[in-house]
């Protein structure tokens, strides 16, 4: 049994000197995930939050025909550029991207308005452009609001209650808590945490098996008075150590980065403090031996380092598949789903972020089934190392 420990120590030490293992375990994963989420968050913040504050530039043809409307628009931070041109010229201008949107006031605008008839306004825009579509929506909202004000004044002038035109009022009531809203945005978080955790042990798993055989150091190792399965147990243990390290670093990086991004700005109060971070690490730990054994097993089956890289790369996707299904199908925690490794961890992580505790039985079920499958794979890896064909 001491041999397991010695193999473990040697693999940990040797891989500390391996740049590829270090980069994938300690730098790439922990930086990549948090930065991805942070930049996605601040991008969505920019397009949703800042858009309405931004001044809107509008070209208006014959603005003198609707002075009140223009004054109203200016109140809502619309910058007006007055021109005098006809419909065809306005079309050309928008098509040539000289002006983003052109509002054309027809000659009879004022007289129809006075007569109480609907007064058309023409707005030219290229709505295939995202920015322009958003501007059109904003302009339409302002102009409709202006129209509604005129309508109310007309009713009052005729001695009618303006509320007569509002028979129904729909009140959508959002009962999602701020924490749950942030969980929506942070849905990718559990996926990234699991992926970087697996990547942390990937190169070690390959190097310790396929790499060792390719270098020719496996055969001398097998001449030592050590049971073959102890050798692979030591290697799996070393992969576990790197995965755990990668996991802790990634979750810590997430906690730090999300604090800087400032979730309150999105009306979210995801409490991603040390307690939630520690909970996420604990939730993922049962998956560590399973992932390490799976990668080691697959790498040990292959004939060369390159082949191992290909297959283990594919295997990395297996534990993340259930998460994709869960997101697409909108799966909710159920006993049968909690028993699926990686999906169970996903649900536990989500419940931690949402601060909506899962039943203790669910958590226990997930932990037990994941550990049991992990033990099975560790045992299978041990059996594989006892086979004579191992030397290939």
């Amino acid at each position, binding site marked *: 049994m001491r041999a397991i420990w*010695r193999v473990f120590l040697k693999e940990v030490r040797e891989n500390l000197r391996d740049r590829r293992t270090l980069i994938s375990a300690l730098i790439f994963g922990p930086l990549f995930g948090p930065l991805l989420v942070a930049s996605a968050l601040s991008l969505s913040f920019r397009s949703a939050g800042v858009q309405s504050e931004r001044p809107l530039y509008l070209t208006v043809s014959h603005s003198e025909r609707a002075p009140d409307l223009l004054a109203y628009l200016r109140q809502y931070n619309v910058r007006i550029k007055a021109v005098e041109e006809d419909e065809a010229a306005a079309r050309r201008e928008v098509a040539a991207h000289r002006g983003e949107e052109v509002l054309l006031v027809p000659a009879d605008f004022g007289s129809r308005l006075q007569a109480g008839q609907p007064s058309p306004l023409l707005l030219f825009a290229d709505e295939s452009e995202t920015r322009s579509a958003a501007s059109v929506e904003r302009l339409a909202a302002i102009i409709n609001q202006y129209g509604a004000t005129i309508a109310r004044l007309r009713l009052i002038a005729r001695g009618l209650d303006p509320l007569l035109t509002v028979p129904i009022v729909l009140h959508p009531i959002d009962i999602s808590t701020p924490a749950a809203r942030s969980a929506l945005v942070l849905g990718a978080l559990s996926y990234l945490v699991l992926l970087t955790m697996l990547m942390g042990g990937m190169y070690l798993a390959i190097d310790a098996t396929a790499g060792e055989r390719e270098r*020719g*150091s496996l055969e001398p190792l*097998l001449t*030592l*008075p050590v049971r073959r399965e102890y050798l692979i147990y030591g290697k799996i243990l070393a992969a576990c150590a790197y995965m755990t390290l990668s996991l802790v670093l990634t979750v810590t990086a997430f906690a730090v980065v999300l604090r800087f991004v400032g979730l309150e700005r999105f009306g979210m109060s995801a409490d991603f403090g040390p307690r939630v971070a520690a909970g996420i690490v604990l939730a993922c730990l049962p998956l560590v031996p399973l992932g390490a054994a799976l990668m080691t097993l697959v790498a040990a089956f292959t004939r060369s380092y390159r082949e191992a890289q290909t297959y283990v790369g594919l295997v990395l996707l297996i534990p993340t598949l259930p998460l994709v299904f869960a997101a697409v199908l909108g799966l909710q925690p159920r006993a049968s789903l909690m028993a699926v490794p990686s999906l169970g961890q996903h649900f536990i992580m989500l419940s931690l972020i949402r601060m909506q505790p899962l039943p203790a039985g669910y958590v226990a079920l997930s932990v037990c089934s994941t550990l049991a499958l992990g033990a099975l794979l560790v045992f299978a890896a041990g059996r594989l190392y006892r086979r004579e064909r191992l030397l290939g």
Partner: protein
Amino acid sequence: MIEAEGLSKRFGAVAAVSGVSLRALDGRITGLLGPNGAGKSTTLRILYTVLPPDCGDARIDGISVVGEPLGARRRMGVLPHGAGLYPNLTARENVLYFGALHGLARAERRVRAAELIKQLDMDEFADRPARGFSQGQRIKTALARALIHRPRNILLDEPTNGLDVMAVRTLRGLLQRLREEGHCILFSSHVMQEIAALCDEVVVIAHGRVAAQGTPAELRGRAGTESLEEAFVRLVGAAGGALESEGPEGRPEGAPGG
């Protein structure tokens, strides 16, 4: 002492070794001589317990490699073909790792490693990472690694492959010293001069069978010739077929090593 009896091993349809029996005594250097693909490596691999034989058994100091492989391994130091090292560990660390897996205490393996580094003239590169070692440096490190636990029996698979003259001389000197100390040394080679220069006993293997065993003088006598090389050619030829399996393409499909 190494005794093998009726070792046989097939890889698919190819019989790599069939019924090999041999004996290597303490205080003697025994050479396993044969053309490429004759079954030398397979025989050694069975002896150092990496491959189990299909039938037959071998005993290392009386311990069966089939029944008690761990016990047999404790009594052997092995230099396999190729001798891969861990590139990120230094030569000393490579040696110490094997000492640790042999169960040597920390202080003991440190002293022993320092001793071997001196004996094998490795001081210059002992604390450099093994990445980028020359073939001679690799073989020396692998040899030190094989000797860390003071094994009574030493098995070497083509140890002089790729070594320059100086390195070969160091290796020869070391093997002779180990013989003086009473170790049992079994090594394979297809180089006649090496066998002639070192061996007290020669086992000639051809086509997976033992063609002859005896001292170089006995073999020359049996073949009725003055040169060992001529004796070798005759003995191998008599074992069936000439040396048509010479060269790497003569290795049977699926059989690892020669």
